[in-house]
């Protein structure tokens, strides 16, 4: 109980600090999206100044932050001025798209990296192990959008029109409305191929070494040897004794990695114009949509917190020493 209380206390402290830091930094920007329409329509400066004064944009940062905080307590995170909609109404759609992209990439990456890591561990120090190691190293050493750009270049030059390179739907179909759900699913999936491949490669590169080292830890354990000498089939030893035990630490690493991996895909979304959270984030930063920026930063922070929390909890479950009392 005491543990949970400290956790909650620290989590709220962290969220307060992060929102304040974001608020402070976005406030340094000279332009705010709430009056950019006035600027574009060529209104006189006096009118803009009057608007600023009326909206309280000239107040000191702390006053504005407290005002934001009071509104946020009631669930009002401000307005997205580009569409004139509340942030809380506009953001979830984008969040869903981000999670869709990352979720599919994640499933693809997992289903490739586990066999790859296992193979690499079984063939330890053989050439196939080295090939996998070098490949994963290359995948993680380059920025995530590099492969995205390369594939865009390749597709655009060699086979234009085969795979869509931007957006998440064919423009005409989106504008007219999809004739049926299946067409929509197919269209979105078609648009997802390249971004998923580009994210998936990086994830495979990140996850495979963890699977490999977790496997190696287990493979040389005594109980695996015992199981083998008991005369169990290789199949049974592998699935019941080796793989299952190897995947336990892997899962807690996953919990910690997923938020960070999603955050680092801001750039992939940008390259493929995937209308997700990261795309919205960068555009909002440039447009001076501070409320949206803060809301998305808050989302990321919560994701990281949840990831850390889950990782801690899983770690404590698997490592008996941390339960206390055993030592």
């Amino acid at each position, binding site marked *: 109980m005491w543990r949970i209380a400290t956790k909650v206390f620290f989590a709220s402290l962290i969220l307060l600090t992060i929102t304040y830091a*974001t608020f402070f930094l976005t406030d340094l*920007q000279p332009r705010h999206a709430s009056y950019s329409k006035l600027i574009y329509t060529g209104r006189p400066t006096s009118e803009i100044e009057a608007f600023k004064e009326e909206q309280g944009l000239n107040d000191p940062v702390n006053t504005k932050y407290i005002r934001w905080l009071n509104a946020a307590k009631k669930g009002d995170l401000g307005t997205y001025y580009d569409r004139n909609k509340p942030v809380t109404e506009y953001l979830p759609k984008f969040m869903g798209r981000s999670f869709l992209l990352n979720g599919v990439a994640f499933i693809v990456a997992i289903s490739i990296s586990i066999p790859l890591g296992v193979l690499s561990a079984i063939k330890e120090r053989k050439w196939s192990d080295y090939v996998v190691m070098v490949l994963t*190293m*290359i995948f993680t050493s*380059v*920025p995530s959008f590099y492969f995205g750009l390369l594939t865009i270049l390749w597709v655009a030059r060699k086979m234009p029109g085969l795979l869509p390179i931007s957006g998440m739907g064919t423009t005409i179909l989106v504008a007219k409305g999809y004739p049926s759900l299946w067409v929509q699913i197919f269209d979105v999936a078609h648009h997802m191929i390249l971004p998923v491949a580009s994210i998936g490669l990086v994830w495979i590169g990140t996850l495979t070494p963890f699977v490999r080292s977790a496997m190696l830890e287990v493979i040389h354990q005594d109980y695996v040897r015992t199981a083998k000498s008991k005369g169990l089939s290789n199949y049974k030893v592998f699935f019941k004794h080796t793989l299952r035990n190897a995947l336990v630490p892997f899962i807690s690493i996953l919990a910690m990695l997923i938020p960070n991996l999603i*955050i680092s895909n801001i750039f992939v979304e940008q390259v493929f114009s995937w209308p997700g959270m990261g795309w919205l984030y960068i555009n909002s930063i*440039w447009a001076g949509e501070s409320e949206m920026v803060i809301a998305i930063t808050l989302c990321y922070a919560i994701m990281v917190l949840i990831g850390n929390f889950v990782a801690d909890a899983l770690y404590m479950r698997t490592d008996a020493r941390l339960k206390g009392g055993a030592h």
Partner: protein
Amino acid sequence: MFGRSFKNPLILVGLFLLLIIVFSVILIPMLSPYQWSDVDGTMKYQAPSSEHWFGTTRLGQDLFVNIWQGGRISLALALIGVIPYTIIGTLLGILSGAGNKKVDFVVSQFMTFIHAFPLLPLIMILGIGLRQIEMEPFQILFLSVFIYSVFSTPSLFKVIRAETMRIHSEEYMKATNILGLNRWAKTRNHIFPNLASYVIISSLQFMAHILIVELLLFFIGVGYSTSANQSRPPSWGNLIPNIRGDNAFKEYYWTWFFPISAIALTTVSLRLLSEGLRVAFDPKAERAN
């Protein structure tokens, strides 16, 4: 230990690549017939040819020279950026792992606190926020990297703390108690040498990380631009067109392909080196051999 390291193919290849990059970065800008700052209005966006090996940039500068010139700043940035990460991470890790429960609690909570920051988003806002302050663009870049470096310390801290705790529970550390060594002597003679491999490996990996972060900052257009002032030397991130710019990404592939490849080559060689060292330092890996 080091004699064995040179038999490891990962270390050899990594070191070889890294040396090539470092020598090119030092020598090519001095030896090339082109200067990085030579602007030629008639040669904008030329595709790679025998005259300009990597093509030319938006301003008609030779990209080949610019890449190696850019490496000077990028590598310097990586070298400087890794210092706070290493020092803070190592010192706090040793302090926290030394056994004082109260100190450990405070430091660990502080690190968890830092660890929860969504770093990339914040550094992006920071880059844009800092633009409004009167400051040299270089200072902004170094400041961003410095802050990034400080806030990344938890990853090193965790490793160092766990290792320090492990070392403290070893038999030979109990022997030092009997010998009556003071804390400083214990840390200097026993803990520090044992941690050295972890520190070196993490620093190498973090250097690769900084190179990529610099690229990302420029990619979204947070860095400074050279187009305004040609007297500013380029860096790797600075050479690529940013996403807010024109259609250079699809039209003129060499403007991003070669700079990012230069970064990728450096990061891969750093990773190879660190991975090789990890294998070389790891006593378990030796036994399996």
